[in-house]
């Protein structure tokens, strides 16, 4: 395929990205995306996006290339204590409620689309800051992402200054140690965390730590197709305990889109609680 079918090749590629990862792209991003994909074409010795599409569709090594592709097409922007009020809500409102209702003993949280782990570690720091461990409550924070490079970075726990943009001087020195011009998370904040690669958009997703009391999935669903959005929320519904909480990013909402989660206003923020499907 060539010339006349450039649009077709591009659509095939975008459809594949959407089918595999649930991600959709605006047309205006095309040039940018093309320039990011070109090095992959070069590395594989392929001359066109059509050839690249066929590689991704049928080549025996497509699995490895899909992982490369995932690194390219995901936006991994994140930082510690992004939308900081969510972490306050978690320790001040959600955890006390959960421990009176169900006395979990072990609080199980999922950070879905965790990127380099900033969100998962922020949860740990918040729980530790509120001395939650002294109440006898322990936690397990599972954190997953599609992008293998980001998961590796999360495990490494080494961050650029930009990741700490919402931390004041005190927070910086309390939770990190400087390493050259980067920052290493202090080991005690890794407590209870576990990072793994997972694709939220696939059918039949298996999450090791389920059921969860709380799921954070912030600034992920905005990039998803309608189909992937629904599929992911069905996973969340399945893997949350009854009455469990879902935290979304400020630009994301379930209102009018899902009635199996109930919006709840907690201190001027909206979070969602699992409702049984057919009450």
């Amino acid at each position, binding site marked *: 395929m060539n010339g006349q079918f450039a649009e077709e090749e591009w659509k095939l590629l975008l459809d594949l990205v959407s089918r595999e990862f649930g991600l959709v792209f605006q047309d205006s991003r095309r040039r940018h995306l093309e320039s990011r994909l070109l090095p992959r074409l070069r590395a594989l*010795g392929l001359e066109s996006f059509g050839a690249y599409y066929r*590689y991704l569709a049928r080549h025996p090594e497509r699995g490895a290339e899909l992982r490369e592709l995932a690194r390219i097409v995901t936006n991994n922007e994140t930082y510690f204590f992004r939308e900081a009020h969510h972490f306050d809500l978690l320790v001040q409102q959600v955890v006390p409620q959960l421990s009176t209702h169900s006395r979990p003993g072990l609080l199980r949280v999922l950070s879905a689309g965790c990127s380099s782990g900033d969100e998962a570690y922020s949860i740990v720091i918040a729980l530790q800051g509120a001395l939650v461990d002294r109440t006898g409550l322990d936690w397990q924070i599972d954190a997953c992402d599609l992008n293998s490079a980001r998961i590796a970075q999360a495990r490494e726990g080494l961050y650029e200054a930009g990741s700490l943009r919402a931390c004041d001087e005190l927070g910086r020195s309390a939770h990190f140690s400087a390493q050259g011009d980067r920052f290493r998370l202090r080991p005690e904040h890794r407590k209870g965390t576990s990072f793994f690669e997972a694709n939220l958009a696939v059918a039949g997703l298996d999450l090791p730590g389920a059921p969860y009391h709380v799921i954070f999935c912030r600034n992920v669903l905005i990039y998803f197709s*309608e*189909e992937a959005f629904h*599929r992911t929320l*069905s996973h969340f519904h399945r893997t949350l305990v009854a009455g469990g909480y879902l935290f979304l990013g400020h630009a994301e909402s379930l209102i009018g889109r*899902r009635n199996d989660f109930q919006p709840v206003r907690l201190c001027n923020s909206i979070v969602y609680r699992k409702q049984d499907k057919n009450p």
Partner: protein
Amino acid sequence: MKVDTLSDAQERLTALQAAAASPGRDQAIVVGLKDASPLVRQNAIALAARHLAPEVLAEFLADDEDAILRNAAQAALERQGPHAIPHLLSLTRGADPELAFFAVQILSTINDVSAKQALLPLLDHSDRNIAQAAVEALGHMRATEAVPALIRLLAGDPWLQFAAASALGRIGDARAVGPLLERLDDELLAEIVVEALGRMGDAATLAPLLDRLVSSDRLPLRDQLLLAVAAVLERNPGLRGVPARARLWRPEVRAGLGEYLGGLLAMHDATLARSAGVLVVHAELWNLMPALLARNPDSGEEGWLEGMLRRCRRRARAEWLPLLQHSDPRVRAGALLQVPFGAGAGPALAACLQDRDPEVRAAACFALGRLREPSAASALARALRSSDAREHAAAAQALAQLPRQSLAELAPDLEPGADEEQMERALGVLEQARSTMHRERVRALVQDGRPALRQAALRVLGRYPGHAADGWIMAGLRDDDTVVRIATVEILVRRRCRKAIPALVELLSAGHPLRYHLVRALGRLRARAAASRLQALYAGAPLHERIEIVVALNQMAPAGLLAFLREVLREPDVELRRVASDGFVRAAGAHEFETMVALARDADWVVRNHATWGLGRLGLPEAQSHLMLLARDVEPLVARTAQAAMGRLRGNSRGRDA
């Protein structure tokens, strides 16, 4: 199945898709058009465009009760395109003003030439909503035939003035400049008129727009004026000498503008900031240059500022040195990358190679590359050894731009004892520069024990002119390392080295992963002599190779290709059928019309798209009715291909008539 809860959108979609092939199809589509989930609705719209008659869809336009259904019907009619036009035109002439209004809007989106003339009389419709919709539609369709009538409306009913000004701006016909300028001081119309003039970008409007920009303090209007002035300046690069620009030199003007533009450069709004940048450069407000350089250009916009600054080269050169001393590294890097400098800039640039910021050092490398100054070679060779990736990549690019002899500086990097990574970088420079220097060393490295170096050396040889190096390169086909062999295949194809074809064919007996690359290489070299060998391999090859064999055969176009492709089209794998249909529609003649029509009904949209294109290529009048149907295919891309094919057919028939 319980299908009324929101979370079951996926189930409802599956049900709709199943119903699309059943007798209750049309009813199911209408239900889908009303669905609360956009996912289901989008699919229903595509099916409606394909299966429901325009008359049926138009009924829903009148439905005041159900806005969702009305919008969905509108979207479906838009997707029907030419198929819906006759009925929509009849609605514009009908008794129901609301339907007429919607019909005009839809015609506007369909944007087919055939509707323009029919919309003209509606400009004087007694219902002002309809008249306005017609004004907007004709503007959207850039209907120059509407210009005189629109100019008339500009002076008429206030209700229509806005729409007329905006439409004239879109159409961009010079006849409208004078009448629009006359309305420039009309309080109510000013903003829209300014926007229209900015869109048109006519040189004659610079002076009046600039006068008002300087004197205006009404905010949204002033921003609008800025956008328009910048648009006119950008559209007319030759305006440097016109008297209007002289206004920019009055001190009071500069003071007033300076403050306003400085504020905009500090803002996030990229469009306003860019327009402010245009003024900064044209008015040569150098005190604002750091603010302009410190802005990160959006990707794809990098060359814009550089291009503008080149137009005031003399002044830019004079102001350049202090910018290199600026405390903000973004300004220093920006000055190196964007501001034109003179031939004597070498020492200043070389000094920047010592900057403490790696971004600035990389920018200095790029700048030295542009200067093509041989004396920079040794400093750049040092930068090539930097541990900072940005810096050594920039140095490599710069070195490749220097005059040939400068690359003698790379000798130490290529010496036998040099560090492997260093050697690779140096070879990378030779490759980029298409240089034949250090020839003996490069040849020796083709036989080095380290595969990465062998590959890098082969790439250098790959850029040698003529065919003298072909033999050396072809030796790479026998390399022990598969990665090197694959790279060699690619190098040979890039050189269009047909001499290598027999060797490539011989290697076909090798297995995975080399064979995949060989097949593709033979196709790209259009090695028709290899066609029968590829056909023989087809049956026993794994799927991904079979797909590439078909692609390669399509490129070679050997005798008997159509018969082969016909077989492949019977395969179950969709990717195989896709590449087969691609080759088929390119090679097929008029006698394959029926097969093409059958492919145009295929369940797979890619196959349909190919067939649609093929029908246009054949250009037979009997394709018209098929294309009409394809023009409202559920897949918008197929619909677009069909519309283009219909245009081609129309062109053919006009040609025949003439």
